[in-house]
C-alpha cells in the first residue's frame, strides 16, 4: 500500500507542476501586453513599469516560470493589477464563502440522493426506480444557474421572503447566512443530487447482486439488517469516494452560481478578474481552485486505499 501511496502522490505532484505551467502560460497567451491590457484606461507609465517589473515580465520566459514557481511555493502569487493587493490575501478572503456554499450544496445533494438512490436500488425495476432515474437524468441536463433563476423567480421578491443575492458570513450571523446561502446551495445541490443518485443507486445495486448477500439472506438475517449491515457498509466506500469527488467538482463548479447570486467567493472573484483583465488574480484563482481539486481527488484515492481492509492488511 505504501508503494501505491508514493506513486499516487508522485503523480499528483507532476500534474500539479503541469498545472502551474498552464497557469503561468495563460498570462502570456494574452494577445498584446497583459499589463497594458490589465491597466486599461487607468494606464499610467509609472504604474505600468512597476507592475511589469513586479510581475517579472521583463525577464526571459524560463526564468520567469521558475521565479513564479518559487514565489508560489512561498505563498506569493503577485499583486492585483486593480487594487495592488497581494493576490494570496484576496484569495483567502474569498475562500470561506466558496467553501460554505460548496459544502452546503453537497450536504443538500447527499440528503436527497442517499434515500432516493438506495430506494431506487432496493425497489429496482419498479416505478420508483424508473422515476428516480428520470429525475436524475433531468437534473443532470439542467444548468445549475437556470435552477437558480427558477428559484429566484419562485422564492424571492414578491413570491417569497428569501433574498435573491448577497452574503453574510457564517461566523457573524448564522441565521442570515442560512437565509442567503439557501438558494444558491439548492441550485448547486439539486444538480449534485442528480449525479449522486445515479451513482448511489448503481453502487447499492451492485452490492445487492453479490453472493455474500445471498449468503446473508440464506442465514436468515432480516432483510433490513442485511441492507444496513452488509450492503450499505460495503457500498459505503465507493459512495464516499464519489461524494469526495463531487466536493472537489463543486469547489470549482460554483462559479456561475456565485455570479448569479452575487456570492463573493472564489468563483465570483474569477469572473471579476476576467472582466477587469486582472491577470494575476485570475492566475491565482485558477491555480488555487485547480490545486484544491487535485488535492481532494488525491485524498479520496488515499482514503479508499486505507479503508478497504483487503488492501491495507496486505
Amino acid at each position, binding site marked *: 500500500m505504501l508503494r501505491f501511496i508514493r506513486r499516487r502522490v508522485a503523480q499528483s505532484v507532476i500534474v500539479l507542476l503541469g498545472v502551474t505551467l498552464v497557469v503561468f502560460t495563460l498570462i502570456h497567451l494574452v494577445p498584446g501586453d497583459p499589463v497594458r491590457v490589465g491597466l486599461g484606461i487607468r494606464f499610467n507609465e509609472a504604474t505600468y513599469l512597476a507592475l511589469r517589473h513586479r510581475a517579472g515580465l521583463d525577464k526571459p520566459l524560463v526564468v520567469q516560470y521558475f521565479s513564479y514557481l518559487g514565489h508560489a511555493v512561498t505563498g506569493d502569487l503577485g499583486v492585483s493589477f486593480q487594487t495592488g493587493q497581494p493576490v494570496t490575501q484576496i484569495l483567502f478572503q474569498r475562500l470561506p464563502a466558496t467553501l460554505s456554499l460548496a459544502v452546503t450544496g453537497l450536504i443538500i445533494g447527499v440528503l436527497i440522493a442517499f434515500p432516493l438512490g438506495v430506494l431506487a436500488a432496493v425497489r429496482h425495476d419498479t416505478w420508483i426506480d424508473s422515476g428516480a432515474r428520470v429525475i436524475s437524468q433531468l437534473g443532470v441536463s439542467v444548468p445549475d444557474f437556470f435552477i437558480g*433563476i427558477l428559484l429566484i423567480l419562485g422564492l424571492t421578491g414578491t413570491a417569497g421572503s428569501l433574498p435573491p443575492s448577497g452574503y453574510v458570513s457564517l461566523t457573524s450571523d448564522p441565521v442570515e447566512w442560512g437565509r442567503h446561502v439557501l438558494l444558491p446551495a439548492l441550485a448547486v445541490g439539486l444538480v449534485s443530487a442528480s449525479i449522486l443518485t445515479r451513482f448511489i443507486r448503481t453502487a447499492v445495486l451492485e452490492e445487492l447482486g453479490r453472493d455474500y448477500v445471498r449468503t446473508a439472506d440464506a442465514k436468515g438475517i432480516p432483510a433490513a439488517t442485511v441492507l444496513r449491515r452488509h450492503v450499505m457498509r460495503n457500498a459505503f466506500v465507493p459512495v464516499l*469516494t464519489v461524494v469526495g469527488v463531487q466536493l472537489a*467538482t463543486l469547489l470549482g463548479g460554483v462559479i456561475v452560481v456565485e455570479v448569479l447570486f452575487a456570492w463573493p467567493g472564489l468563483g465570483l472573484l474569477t469572473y471579476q478578474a476576467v472582466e477587469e483583465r486582472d491577470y494575476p488574480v485570475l492566475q491565482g484563482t485558477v491555480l488555487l481552485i485547480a490545486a484544491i481539486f487535485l488535492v481532494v481527488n488525491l485524498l479520496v484515492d488515499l482514503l479508499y486505499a486505507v479503508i478497504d481492509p483487503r488492501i491495507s492488511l496486505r
Partner: protein
Amino acid sequence: MTTPSAQFTEPVADPATAATGDAAAGRPSAGSARDVARVLVRRPLALGGLLVICLMVVLALFGTQIAPNGENDVDVSQMLTGPSAKHWFGTDELGRDVLSRVIIAAHASLEVSVVSVGAALVAGVLLGLLAGYYGRFADSFIMRCMDVLFAFPVMLLAIAIVAVLGAGISSAMIAIAVVYTPIFARITRASVLSVREEVYVRAAVSIGVPDREIIGRHILPNVAGPIIVQTSLSLGFAILTEAALSFLGLGVQPPQPSWGAMLYDARGFVEQAWWMAVFPGLAIVLTVLSFNLVGDALRDVLDPRRRTQLEAAGRP
C-alpha cells in the same frame, strides 16, 4: 487498481471484459446499426430524445425561415410583454419576440456544441491513438498532459481560456474543444490498449501490414462504439458549457442569440419578465436531456462497461 477519482474519467481497460462482444472484437459494427434501432424502439424516451434532436437541428438550419419574426426585429410598443397570442413566448426589453429568438438561437448553441465537440473528437482520438498504439514515451507524455487538463474543473478552464483569448463565439469554441479533448483521448487510448494485444492484430503486425492500415481496419472500429456514446453525451454537455459561458457574457456576444446569451440578457429582468429566462432555459434543458437519453441508450448497445464510472462525477 483503478483509483477512485480516475474511475470517473478513465474507462477501465480490463482485459477480462474487454474482449467481449462485437465492438471489442474489432469487427465493424455493421450489425450494431440494427441493434441501435432495436434499442431505440424499446425505449420511447430515447426515441423522443432523437426526435427532439432532429427538431433542434432543423431549427438550427432553418430557424430564420421558420421563426415568425427576425431575431432583431424590434417592436417598441411591445416591450416586456408576457406570453400572448401575438407573441407566444412574450417579448424582451427591446420588444423582440422571444419565440423567434429562441428558435433562431438554436443555430448558435448547436453550432458551438458541434464544432467544439467535433474538434475535441478529432484531437482526442488522434492523441489517444498515438498514446495507445505507440506506447511508452508517447503514451506517458500525452496522458500526463491529459491528466493536467483533467485537473481543472470544466468551467474554470473554459473561463480561463476565454479570458485569455477575449470573449466571443470562437473563443468559446476553442475553450470547449480544449476542455473536452482529454476524455476522448482517454476513451480512445483504452480501446486501443484493449485491442492492441489481440492475436489477430499482432499477426497483422508481424506480417508487415502498415500501421495506418492496422489502425484503420482493426483498431478504429473497436473505438467507434464508446466514442459515439461519448460524442452524444458531450454534445449535450457542451451546450451546457456554452450556455454558462454566454450567461457570463463570455461566449456568444449580443446581439447574436444563443440560449445562454438570452439568459444573459434576461439577467436584469428576472423579476419583471420571467419568460425571457424560462423559455431559453427550457430549450437548453430539453436539448441536453435529449442528448443524454440518446447517449444512454447508445451506451447500452455500444459500450456497457463504462456505465458505472461515468455516472459519478459531473464529468461529461
